[in-house]
């Protein structure tokens, strides 16, 4: 009997299911983000000690892309809408800043609303068409719209065309040159990230979010319950696009430069990888994933010019062995420790 019980043990320890990962993620859903934001808030103080610029710039970049990744997770993780064209929204936000700056308009109160409006309008128009399709076809049609935006930007000869556009002066807020100071830009990005995170969290937890999640699991049943799934998905898509526009606004100000490369399909792919690397459908996983992605990039590219030869197989290994990304890995370790 004793040996029988022993041999039964492995089956008594079922593999960690997606639902359990999600449950564990929900529990740590306030601790981990709190920790992340705490570290980020303290970083500029620490940055005083290291040579000016580098660390702060890197952290700012991480936060800007985190905003976009969290926004992407809202539609991918909670709506099962895998958008392969989200880089376009970032690019549109950035181009709004760049084009206004080329005409000498650098006021945030003009450029930020424009960046948001343009990216949300683009999300609305493309969402109207894209959301008619499902699954792989959705991936491909969002890719198509992303490519259209990319080629449009490449053809803007008065604004640099393929080469992109250098922004002479960063945006001002009510005439005050706020973004000129790296630390100010850093804290603005941090505030935007925190705002984005809690906005998405509130959306996910609301009735609206429950409809969205219901449609992820079973769109037919949600439709039968009387919800017009299409409209909910469209609204989520527009919100996500707008938040990416915000990231684009910040990116243009951080880089002093906009280029069509911001909208390339590789960028959209990288955004998806960032979300997946951290753990899909957790929101804060997107932040962890973005930070890991950009830090690994920074680390490995310092090591060798051919760092992607190392990074590529790493991604493959994460997919094959680490389901649920880094957050899933964390949840599994914790679950194992608790249950022996």
């Amino acid at each position, binding site marked *: 009997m004793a040996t029988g019980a022993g041999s039964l043990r492995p089956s008594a320890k079922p593999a960690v299911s997606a639902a359990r990962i999600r449950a564990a993620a929900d529990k740590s859903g306030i601790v981990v983000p709190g920790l992340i934001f705490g570290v980020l808030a303290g970083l500029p103080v620490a940055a005083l000690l290291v040579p000016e610029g580098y660390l702060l710039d890197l952290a700012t970049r991480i936060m800007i892309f985190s905003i976009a990744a969290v926004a992407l997770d809202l539609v991918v993780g909670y709506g099962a809408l895998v958008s392969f064209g989200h880089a376009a929204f970032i690019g549109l936000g950035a181009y709004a800043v760049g084009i206004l700056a080329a005409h000498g308009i650098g006021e945030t109160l003009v450029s930020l609303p424009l960046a948001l409006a343009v990216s949300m309008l683009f999300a609305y128009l493309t969402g109207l068409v894209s959301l008619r399709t499902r699954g792989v076809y959705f991936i491909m049609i969002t890719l198509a719209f992303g490519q259209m935006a990319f*080629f449009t930007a490449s053809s803007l000869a008065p604004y640099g065309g393929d080469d992109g556009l250098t922004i002479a002066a960063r945006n001002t807020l009510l005439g005050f040159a706020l973004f000129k100071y790296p630390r100010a830009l850093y804290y603005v990005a941090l505030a935007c990230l925190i705002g984005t995170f809690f906005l998405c969290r509130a959306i996910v937890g609301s009735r609206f979010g429950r409809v969205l999640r219901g449609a992820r699991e079973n769109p037919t049943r949600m439709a039968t319950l009387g919800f017009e799934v299409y409209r909910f998905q469209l609204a989520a898509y527009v919100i996500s696009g707008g938040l990416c526009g915000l990231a684009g606004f910040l990116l243009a100000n951080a880089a002093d430069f906009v280029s069509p490369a911001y909208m390339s399909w590789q960028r959209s792919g990288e955004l998806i990888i960032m979300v997946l690397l951290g753990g899909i459908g957790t929101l804060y996983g997107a932040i962890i994933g973005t930070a890991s992605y950009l830090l690994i990039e920074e680390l490995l590219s310092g090591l060798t010019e051919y760092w992607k030869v190392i990074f590529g197989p790493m991604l493959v290994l994460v997919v094959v062995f680490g389901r649920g990304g880094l957050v899933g890995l964390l949840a599994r370790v914790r679950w194992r420790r608790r249950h022996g």
Partner: protein
Amino acid sequence: MSLALLFVQILNGLQLGVLLFLIAAGLTLVFGVMDFINLAHGVQYMLGAYLAVAFYTLAGNFFFALVLALATTLAFGLALEFLVFRRLYGRDHLDHVMATFGIILFLNHGVKLAWGAAPLSLPIPDLLSGSVVLMDGLLYPVWRLVIIGSGLAVAAGLYGLVNYTRIGMLVRAGATNAPLVSALGVDIRRLFMIVFGFGAMLAGFAGIMIAPILSVEPGMGDTILILAFVVIVIGGIGSIRGAFLAALIIGLVDTLGRSFAVDILRLFMGPSPARTVGPALASMLIYVLMAIVLYWRPAGLFPVKGR
């Protein structure tokens, strides 16, 4: 816009079309039969081109290089399937995207490491170089005709293979309902492996054939991959017939659009804005086409029944 120019551009469009078909055929089968999104299909095309150059420098004979490169791309495809992809069947599409994206990064930079970042070139075999006169004032390179011919031959061969052989029947059945085929006692894993290896070899073949007229460089697979995806989505995933028609349509629309967009736009607007808008519109044309097709037919032109 002379008639000869139009004719040349139609031939160029056909050449791009059959090239796209060679790549899309494997992609649509892998997608249709295994429900697997293989973003790494484009780098197999790139690998074919690089291997052709490498074997050519070794052997000094194009046809020898062709055979060796084909065998190597086949072996490479099978190895990839064995090592990575078979662990991912049945997983979420997102996992496929991430894993194959990793393989793209690896191979794009791997070839840079092995052969350098500078573009390489492959000479056209002497026998098939030069041009022929197709009609008055119309010279056309023989090699491009060879590409069109071999592409059409492969298409015809595939048509026969898929429609009149046992393995083709299994592939068609697999694209319609893979679990059912497996339940009927067919070794579906072996079928997957064959389809995958064959698809990789076709993509490699496309790379080998295009190497003499295009520069061989890292990242050359990325653009063609996106075009191939547009093709299989317009054609309907899993449909060889759809892929063939869509490839020709995309090849022609893209080539003719790029050649004549500016001229056509000049009928409506001044020459200066036409020169600005034209190229952008031409690059976008196939994506617009895809969006329109998907709007009216959300599962492509030839949807495979049962999906």
